């Protein structure tokens, strides 16, 4: 624990904030969704970090490998990853339809077109 023991969480917060920044600062809808995915992946890392035990091994039971890391965060994140890609696909599908309707994926241009109606 020579690094204060919390450094992992701090770097994960930096990664989260990078994703958050992309979501709020970028006007391009595709890039926004990529930012959301960056944010999501860093939340996954945070969860898995919480489950890690010093000296632990992967939770596949076998004599002589105690202790095991906490398997519960693994289960939660395992399902969250696949649900995440399914919802990302839904978001990207909406972006494709927006592009077909407005001929643009830039937030400002879409807003201007809505105003000028």
């Amino acid at each position: 624990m020579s690094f204060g023991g919390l450094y992992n969480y701090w770097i994960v917060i930096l990664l989260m904030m990078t994703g958050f920044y992309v979501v709020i600062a970028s006007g391009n809808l595709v890039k926004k969704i990529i930012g959301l995915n960056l944010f999501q992946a860093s939340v996954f890392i945070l969860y898995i970090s919480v489950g890690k035990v010093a000296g632990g091994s992967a939770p596949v039971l076998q004599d002589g490998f105690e202790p095991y890391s906490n398997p519960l965060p693994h289960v939660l994140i395992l399902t969250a990853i696949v649900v995440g890609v399914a919802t990302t696909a839904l978001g990207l599908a909406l972006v494709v339809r927006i592009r077909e309707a407005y001929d643009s994926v830039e937030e400002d241009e879409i807003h201007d077109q809505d105003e000028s109606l």
Partner: protein
Amino acid sequence: MLIEFVNIAILALLAVTALAAIRLHDLFAVAMMFGIYSLLASVMFVVLDAIDVAFTEAAVGVGISTVLMLGTIGLVGRHEQKPAHRPLLPILVVTITGAALVYGTLDMPLFMDPAAPAQQHVAPYYLNESPEQIGIPNVVTSILASYRGYDTLGELAVIFTAGIGVLGILGLRRRKRPGHEGTSE
């Protein structure tokens, strides 16, 4: 000790990749950065003992997500418009949120602490009882499918719904009618 060094190296690479994704304005390059980010995250999961998660992240994040993003970029164009003004407000919001989160971590148990509350609650029960109650070695599978079967049913329903949603929005195949090519949409 070795794990901590590997950990820090991968986290640093992750940070570099994420910052590069901010600076780039070519969406193709941003999608590639996301693929690299996912691959690094899955290496991180192996280091942190989550082999099942690493498996999934490598297949989903690096494979399917990136392919879907590239498919979308192919449809909508690969160049992002450069922002017209300096992004001062977003930087301020992000800094304040980050500072608040860092302040929140000060109360958290130390990384890899075996006495942390997260390791004391139901996890020991699952690890100790799973061999008798379920009888399979991989505890992740036994929690996923048996102890938390309701959860997984819900997740599967979400995936089902998302699939139906994409099917409804994009459609599997638009029928080509002779003589009506220009009028679709």
